[in-house]
């Protein structure tokens, strides 16, 4: 455990020296500041930041994590020649990466918000946004590690992560739309909610949207969905689903990595 922590801190220090990652934080800060300058309406800023988060955070987290995984493969092998457990090492690397990316994302949003002087009306909304950004980062780091462990070929691994990103941001919603279209004569609220549980991006989106007044645009169906996902139990459900999305892919990669022929 102590070794894990040591490794984690070392990784973290190394990651925070990578200029590309600071560029990520800077662009998040830039985007949120730009939204604030363009409109004074916090609800609009929040919605725009949500759209940005849903697209950019999974892409950057996934792509960076999987590239980092392959680029440091030799160093990993070198470390494994030392008295370090495989599981410990993988966990430390994953945790450091997820922590760094989350911190930089949060720092970016916070830096953008400081321009507003922290006199926010929609504090709760921004907190939910930060939470959904965090879960997106964790889930896509996990998926990246799974791809990294599964494929030895870097091209294949990166493609797999990009495919996952494309699937969860666009294709899964297209699938939901198709289901809604095909079975429109049936009550669909529950099946649709079940389908959203299968995509971390949908869950992260609804986590924020259901707490904003735009949710009224979902009409009567929205009330049912709000009951299923937005009530206390529903929030627990969607947060547990997001926790599973953050941990399960990594756990799989951890199990595989322990027995993998390197």
């Amino acid at each position, binding site marked *: 455990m102590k070794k894990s922590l040591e490794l984690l801190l070392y990784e973290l220090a190394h990651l925070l020296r990578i200029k590309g990652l600071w560029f990520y934080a800077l662009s998040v800060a830039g985007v949120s500041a730009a939204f604030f300058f363009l409109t004074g309406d916090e609800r609009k800023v929040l919605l725009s930041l949500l759209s940005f988060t849903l*697209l950019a955070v999974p892409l950057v987290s996934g792509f960076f994590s999987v590239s980092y995984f392959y680029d440091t493969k030799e160093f990993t092998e070198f470390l494994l020649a030392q008295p370090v457990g495989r599981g410990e090492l993988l966990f430390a690397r994953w945790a450091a990466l997820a922590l760094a990316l989350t911190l930089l994302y949060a720092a970016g949003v916070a830096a953008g918000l400081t321009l507003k002087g922290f006199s926010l009306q929609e504090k709760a909304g921004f907190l939910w946004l930060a939470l959904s950004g965090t879960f997106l980062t964790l889930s896509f780091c996990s998926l990246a590690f799974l791809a990294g462990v599964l494929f030895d070929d870097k091209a294949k691994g990166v493609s797999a992560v990009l495919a996952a990103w494309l699937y969860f941001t*666009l294709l899964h*919603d*297209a699938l939901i739309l198709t289901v809604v279209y095909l079975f*429109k004569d049936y009550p669909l609220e529950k099946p649709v*909610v079940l389908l*959203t549980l299968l995509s971390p991006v949908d869950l992260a989106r609804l986590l924020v949207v259901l707490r904003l007044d*735009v949710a009224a*645009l979902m009409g*009567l169906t929205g009330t049912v969905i709000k009951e299923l996902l937005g009530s206390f139990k529903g929030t627990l459900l969607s947060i547990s689903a997001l926790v599973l999305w953050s941990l399960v892919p990594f756990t799989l990669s951890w199990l595989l990595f322990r027995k993998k022929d390197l």
Partner: protein
Amino acid sequence: MGRPASPPPHAPLLLTLLLAALSFAQTLVVCKDCRITSIKKALELAKDGDTILVKGGTYREGTIVVNKRVRLVGEGYPTLDGQRKYEVLKVTADGVTVEGFRIVNSGVSELEDLAGLKVEGASGCVIKDNLFENNFWAVYLSGVRGCRVEDNLIKGSGEQSEAYTGNGIHLWHCERVLIRRNRIEGHRDGIYLEFVKDSLILENEARNNWRYGLHFMFSHGNTYARNLFERNGAGVAVMYTKKVVMVNNTFRDNWGDSSYGLLLKAITDSLVVNNRFYRNTVGILMDECQRTLIKENDFVENGWAVKLWANSANNTITYNNFLANTFDFATNSRRSENELRRNYWSAYRGYDLNRDGIGDVPYKPVKLFAYIVENNPAASVLLKSPLVELLNLAEEAFPALTAVELKDPEPLLRRVEWRFYE
């Protein structure tokens, strides 16, 4: 050139009679230390045409029935308390005035519509400058002709549900009533009219009512002007009515899952002109509407500015401003028998080469996603999804993707300037 008009020969006689009548009309004063200490007693003593002046204080007299043509005037807003048991004032005579009272705590009943002030079958009443607080129904007019309800301040009981409170101003089978400058809060419906004809509803403010700010059915030929409807549970709903005129009203912040700025259900031959719709979930929902003109209105920052259902036809929507709405338009059919022409759309991206102020490319206000959601409500779970943003972009790039034919063939490039009378 005619002869100078001379007074009719019997004018002096009429004048004498009038003076005689006036001299017989007397004022009865009611107060705690007066000769008459109760309003009921004063009403017993009063004759038609008398004035009963009630001075400050609280009067708990059960139900006070006004069955003579008197002016009931309060000085210093005397309180008439129904003690949560009685209907407070009940007017059955013609030509009664009720002015300057504070009427509170009417009884609550599931069977009878107990009101703070009920007028039944009378004509020519004036209800003016009263405060109504914590009543089940506040002002209740039934079978009334030629009345005025003016400058009253009406606050509901604040019970946490629409089932435990009646309407602020309630009219049933009335004609020629003027409802003006009243403020109504916390009731079920602010103003409710059923079978009401030829009436004027002017300059009222209905806020924070549990259900509708204004609600009417089967009430033909009424005019609604310069009213404000703000933050009501479900906005304003008007139904099954012909020849409605709505001018210069403001519909604001009626936001919620099933809330409308203005719900037009089975409305025909009506005018909706020069109104402002700000931040409502739906600005106007048109369901079974026929031959209605919607002209020179502002729709600003609504969820949907207009929802036009397929059962509506021959309506004209023209010279309106559509500014920064999430969706300008939604409909549930591909075809539409309505005229949409010469509106200003802030989302319009066309051009005007001949500089006549009219865009050269038609504007299609129904977004693909709005159409999908209207037909498949469960699709609303994709609100704010990147896929939806992509669909919107694709729709702009490939016009063939648009599902609905409805379009404004002559979109305006400049905002329509029209006058709002404050």
